[in-house]
């Protein structure tokens, strides 16, 4: 199995009455709540945490893109990834990812990802999310009816920019570019592995399987509620006659490890309740713009997780720790307890790319280091061999160490 340490970089100082006094953590959150001086500290702590995760042996470190929100402070994950490419040597750099429909021209993504791949010596995983409705349709005002058309066109343009041997003209519906000629080009050939984060759309399963991309279910609802989504994905894999290789799938799971269960509750209750109480406080007005959910997904009776969370946010507070743990949002306990739960997560969902979220909410750097160290030292070694019979075709192929630029 691979273990990818994922950071959302939330803003940590939302007030205790945030939920009561603000309609949403996203889109129209009050700018007065943002203190740049505090953000200076948070960003630097977050870099320390990502670099620490790489140092203690995680296979990769992950970043992602969000806009106009206190849920995640990375409007440009590529800036973070580039700094990490310089600060780390072996850990893979997983940008999960760039919301490619938002870039004009999307060639920009081909260029920036190629830069990260070159600087890191071929350690990049390139993520292409459609993006949340809050980020794409409201914060960036992309037309929801065109979002997926733009997404697919951007994907085609980026892959061609990485792989065509000569400059070419791109005549798309939304992008026309006379001279597509990405300089630099990625080290990894034909291109860095492409992973697709999704929230439960039928089309995303098809897209991943058709193209042999990794499907990543970035659930904040834990592994119990994810069973149907992942079963749907594996059904599409089966129908396509492709190998049920667990490395085709990624899953994000909140985890809190401590020496005792009580200590885990003491350490992680505050950060978990902060995340589910404040960072997930999404106004339903921004969760389901017309056209965002495709007709095929509507027919399948599926609701995207953003809409589910927003709906739940409207109905009741699913934010108390007992419920958070009971519903499996956060896997919690001693290292041995966590090992067994993660084994259950991985085997029940059949995922080989696990993204434990070991910083969440307003977790301090000290607690994050503890959580990260315990997971690296006492959990990973007991699970690393899981799925050892499968070959991971979706992992970066970096330069040999002897070829990497000297410090």
């Amino acid at each position, binding site marked *: 199995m691979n273990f990818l340490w994922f950071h959302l970089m939330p803003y940590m100082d939302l007030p205790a009455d945030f939920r009561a006094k603000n309609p949403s953590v996203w889109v129209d959150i009050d700018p007065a709540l943002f203190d740049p001086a505090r953000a200076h500290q948070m960003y630097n702590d977050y870099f320390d945490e990502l670099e620490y995760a790489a140092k203690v042996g995680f296979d990769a470190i992950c970043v992602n893109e969000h806009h106009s929100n206190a849920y995640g402070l990375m409007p440009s994950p590529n800036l973070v990834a580039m700094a990490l490419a310089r600060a780390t040597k072996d850990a893979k750099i997983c940008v999960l990812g760039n919301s490619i429909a938002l870039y004009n021209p999307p060639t920009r993504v081909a260029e920036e990802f190629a830069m990260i791949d070159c600087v890191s010596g071929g350690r990049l995983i390139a993520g292409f999310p459609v993006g949340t409705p809050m980020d794409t349709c409201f914060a960036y005002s992309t037309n929801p*009816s065109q979002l997926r058309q733009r997404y697919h066109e951007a994907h085609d343009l980026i892959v061609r920019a990485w792989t065509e041997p000569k400059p070419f003209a791109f005549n798309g519906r939304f992008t026309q570019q006379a001279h597509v000629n990405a300089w630099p080009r990625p080290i990894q050939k034909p291109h860095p592995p492409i992973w697709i984060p999704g929230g439960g759309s039928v089309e995303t399963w098809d897209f991943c399987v058709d193209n042999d991309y990794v499907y990543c279910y970035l659930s904040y609802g834990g592994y119990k509620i994810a069973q149907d989504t992942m079963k749907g994905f594996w059904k599409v894999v089966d129908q396509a006659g492709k190998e049920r290789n667990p490395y085709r799938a990624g899953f994000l799971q909140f985890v809190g490890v401590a020496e005792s269960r009580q200590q885990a509750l003491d350490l992680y209750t505050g950060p978990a309740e902060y995340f589910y109480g404040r960072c997930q406080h999404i106004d339903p007005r921004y969760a389901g713009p017309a056209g965002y959910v495709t007709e095929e997904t509507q027919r399948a009776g599926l609701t995207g997780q953003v809409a589910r969370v927003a709906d739940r946010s409207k109905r009741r507070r699913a934010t108390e720790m007992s419920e958070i743990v009971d519903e499996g949002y956060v896997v919690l306990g001693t290292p041995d307890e966590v090992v067994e739960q993660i084994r259950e997560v991985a085997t029940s969902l059949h995922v080989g790319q696990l993204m434990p979220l070991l910083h969440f909410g307003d977790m301090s750097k000290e607690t994050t280091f503890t959580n990260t160290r315990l997971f690296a030292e006492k959990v990973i070694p007991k699970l690393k061999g899981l799925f050892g019979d499968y070959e991971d075709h979706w992992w970066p192929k970096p330069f040999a160490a002897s070829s990497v630029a000297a410090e």
Partner: protein
Amino acid sequence: MNPPQDSAIDQSIIDLDGHDIRVWRKGAGPRVGYFAGWGGLPRWTPFLDELSKRREVVAPSLPGFPGGGRAHLDLDTQFDWVVAARRIFMAAGLEGADLIGASVGGALAAEIAALWPGSVRRLALISPLGYYDEAAPPADMFARRADEYPAFLCADPGLWRAHVAPSASANDVEWEIDAARAAEAAARLLWPLGNSGVAKRAPMISRPTLLLRGDRDQVVSSALLAKWQAAIPGAKVRTISDAGHLADLDNPAAVAAAVLDFTR
């Protein structure tokens, strides 16, 4: 495509680049076209019935709205939308007829009257969208919870609920998808601000124009309608009492009387 619930309604289909576009007709007399507003025409309305007592009412569906299939997915620009609306208008036999456009439909009816001035006899716009003025912008149609729409669109929320309620013969899932598609089509045309750029072309409308607005319209303010009036030479304004944004749903008799009077 669901059949009309009223046997007196004639349904025909026109082709738009491989998409079936429904046209409903009823009544006899001088022809009048109708481009429906937000949500389109999942069913015939009392307003159209009122008109059809004295006129031949022709109501073609717009792309993506009920009866308009998925034609909206081929329309990427405002230019694409205007050309599609113009082709539907002509194929429905509306050249030279009076034209009514409500809400979303008003945005496209105004374009046809502006760009092909000889094609419309008289133009009636009911709380038209598409005109954006920074001092009096239209309300945000899109950042809404589903349960907000009835009271947002109509003075009597029950009228909107009845208008979009599944018909007895309809497949509920497909009916819901039709309704979601209508909202998507409106978004495709007007996202994010409701600005189609028609403000630049409104001064080219040279045919007699009547602007109507419900006195309880929460979307188009009286100040915004005044901008429309200032832009269209000679345009007149009528306020409809006890009516919201979809004034022809709220007060069909008053809107029909005003339109019939104006297009005599």
